[in-house]
């Protein structure tokens, strides 16, 4: 069961979010490994887990220290799956195995107490009562976090140990090396008896543990489920987020002020702010046009990531977010070129398109195309995009294409355009350092998307952007001649 491959996220940002979840226990990491996106028929299940997540998020917002305490327990957890498996196979447990099972049972009791003593009420989080198991492995009155094969398990063991102790005292006091040797010999015989007794006790404990194995298995899964849920809640608290609304399959995906958490963090470090994306992706085709460096790719990635995370049971990172429960999300970003298998980026796109058409037979989906057919000639490229738009209108896809190609004519499509440069007469910064040039450009770019009433329009800003990036003057003058 551990050989199951983890889910391969469709977008790099989803992968980033998953990789940055606060999961410290082996069980939480396993839960992530077995996490699978919901499909259209799982709607009820997804709604239920979103209910749970909503409760936990509200609770976490009000009880900041709860998460820290829970993580304190998660961090200590060891993977006892091997020990449990050995017990299932009726192997006699050794001391370390008994020790780690005892620790696990104590940690579960601790977590159960933490949750039960709080106001947190979640229907999916239910801890087994492992106190009797702790007592089995800790026959003393006082519960301690260490383990030893206690004398109270057997009178014979107690007698042997007492006798051994007396001998050890004699060895210590012996001045005659001969006598000491003799005593040591006697001691080694007692050690043999002690081991035999201990073996019997371990064997008995192994048998007594058998009925507990199913509880231990359940508890391991419970720890994993809870840690992953808590990690999702913490992600929702870290970034602006909302509970996604799941709509019927013909409805559009509607994102209001959606963010891309990875980009959000990168910009935060630089002291900048992410411009949230507001966009509606209808069933059929949605087109996005806009200036180079206008954030089209980021907008697409933001939408695709949020849709994917919703399917994985996360809150959407947006002010409002609704979408049908897609069966798949497919991203074609034109960067799939793989020279090792002889594929150019154009070739890769065509192969991916074939894969996508296979998927369309399996249900409804969200397909995202960043500059489709960008690397072929514009004469043909435009036709490829036109055909793709028509193709998506005919299929039951929610498709969104970012493109540079002019003259795409799709009557039923929704068209957006990046607002673009705020001011067409920007002055170059004093410094020609590339960072300063990019910063200057970013500061003057309005990344918001504007919904167009009619057809898509492609702004001709490339020359402008090149100027702002301080392209070589000789090159620019040659270029400008061609524009005239």
């Amino acid at each position: 069961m551990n050989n199951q491959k983890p889910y391969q996220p469709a977008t790099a940002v989803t992968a980033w979010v998953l990789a940055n979840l606060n999961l410290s226990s082996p069980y939480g990491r396993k839960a992530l490994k077995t996490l699978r996106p919901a499909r259209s028929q799982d709607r009820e299940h997804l709604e239920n887990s979103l209910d749970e997540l909503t409760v936990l998020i509200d609770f976490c917002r009000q009880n900041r220290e709860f998460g820290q305490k829970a993580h304190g327990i998660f961090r200590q957890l060891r993977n006892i799956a091997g020990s449990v498996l050995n017990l299932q196979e009726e192997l006699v447990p050794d001391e370390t195995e008994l020790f780690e099972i005892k620790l696990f049972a104590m940690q579960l009791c601790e977590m159960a107490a933490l949750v039960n003593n709080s106001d947190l009420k979640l229907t999916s989080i239910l801890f087994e009562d492992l106190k009797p198991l702790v007592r089995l492995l800790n026959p003393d009155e006082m519960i301690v976090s260490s383990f030893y094969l206690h004398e109270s398990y057997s009178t014979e063991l107690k007698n042997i140990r007492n006798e051994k102790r007396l001998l050890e005292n004699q060895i210590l006091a012996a001045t005659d090396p001969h006598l000491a040797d003799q005593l040591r010999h006697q001691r080694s015989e007692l050690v043999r008896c002690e081991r035999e007794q201990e073996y019997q006790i371990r064997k008995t404990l192994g048998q007594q543990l058998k009925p507990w194995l199913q509880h231990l298995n359940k508890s391991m899964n419970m720890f994993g489920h809870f840690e992953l849920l808590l990690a999702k809640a913490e992600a929702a608290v870290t970034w602006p987020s909302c509970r996604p609304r799941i709509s019927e399959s013909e409805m559009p995906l509607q994102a209001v002020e959606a963010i891309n958490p990875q980009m959000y963090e990168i910009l935060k470090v630089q002291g900048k702010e992410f411009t949230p994306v507001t966009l509606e992706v209808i069933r059929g085709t949605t087109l996005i046009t806009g200036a180079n460096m206008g954030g089209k790719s980021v907008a697409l990635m933001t939408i695709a990531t949020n849709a994917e995370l919703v399917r994985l049971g996360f809150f959407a990172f947006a002010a409002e977010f609704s979408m049908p429960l897609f069966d798949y999300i497919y991203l074609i970003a034109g960067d799939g070129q793989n020279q090792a298998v002889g594929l150019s980026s154009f070739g890769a796109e065509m192969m991916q398109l074939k894969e996508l058409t296979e998927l369309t037979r399996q249900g409804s989906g969200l397909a995202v195309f960043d500059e489709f057919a960008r690397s072929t000639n514009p004469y043909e490229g435009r036709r490829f995009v036109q055909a793709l738009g028509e193709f998506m209108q005919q299929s039951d896809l929610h498709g969104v294409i970012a493109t540079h190609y002019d003259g795409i004519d799709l009557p039923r499509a929704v068209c957006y355009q990046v607002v673009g440069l705020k001011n067409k007469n920007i002055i170059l910064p004093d410094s020609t350092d590339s960072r300063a040039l990019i910063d200057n450009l970013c500061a003057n770019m309005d990344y918001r998307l504007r919904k167009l009433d009619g057809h898509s329009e492609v702004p001709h800003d490339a020359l402008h952007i090149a100027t702002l990036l301080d392209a070589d003057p000789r090159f620019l003058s040659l270029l400008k001649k061609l524009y005239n």
Partner: protein
Amino acid sequence: MPDRLTELVADCNCLAIIGTEKNAGKTTVLNHLLATDRRPGQAITSIGYDGENVDQVTGTDKPVIYVGRGTLVATANDLIGQCDFTRELVRFTNLYTPLGEVVILRALSDGYAQIAGPSTTGQMAILTRMLQQEKAGRIIIDGAAARKSTAAVTTADGCILATGASYSPDPEKVVEHTTHIAALLTLPAAKNLPDVIKQAYQKVENQVANDMGARQAADCMLVDGNENIIITGNSLEDSTAELIATHSSKPLCVYFTGAITARLVQKLLERSRELRDLKLIAADGTRFLLSATQLSELKRRGVQLLVIKPVNLLAVTVNPWSPEGFYLDSNSLCARLKTVLSVEVFDIMADKATSKVL
């Protein structure tokens, strides 16, 4: 009754026992200390695997470690079954050795211990911290040969060097070798260390807490008289010796984050005559992997060998028996060592207290 050696190391919170060679009697010293000072809550561990019944290198009998009840023993999971004291499992450490995870045990009776502890400095630092959290009164680290004992001396605040007949049947050679190892261990601390070196040292020391394995390409740093870094290099490359030789006409400090190897020093000696303005600096004495000839030649040419954290060498112990079965005259060997070493010298085999536990 505590003897002089036991008294000498009594105040040490973390003691490392290292040897000039294998079979130099480290374990005998450890047993001696455990028998003469049965303070409660003492902790023992080792660098890697030692304490085996039969020495894995030479095939000779080795004394096993006999611990008193109450002793904390940090050893690898696979060896727990071979420890014969009644025990309590106190803590898992998450530190792994080829023999499994290191587990902290408490001996509830006296008995024989098989010990395999961590082998890197970073892991040893973590382990000693855990032992202190478990209220260890004093920690004794059973080390290895000196040059492999970086992890022990870095962590410890005191150190015993065990030497003996296992090195050579010629007592003069034993004396010479022991003096050399002791000289390296007790190299003096560098005064007025340039800030850039301090920073580099801190960085490396903090790094080892996580991972010692990843060696950086540049592991030595040339610093001029104005405390500016001239260049960094890789000590495994011969060109680095060239660099040092080129810059050594003016005051120069060279700091090594890892070891200073015999090869590098050889190349350096071949390429230069006068080295009066050169200081070679490393974290501690175990990092200088030089022969006695090289050491004296470096000194003759005026090189200063300095460390950042000096080793507190408390005593030298002598094992007159060699694994091949011959015996050196302990009295004269000890007497010879006393004349050349600045620390006290003991023959613990001659001490009656030891015979009880062997």
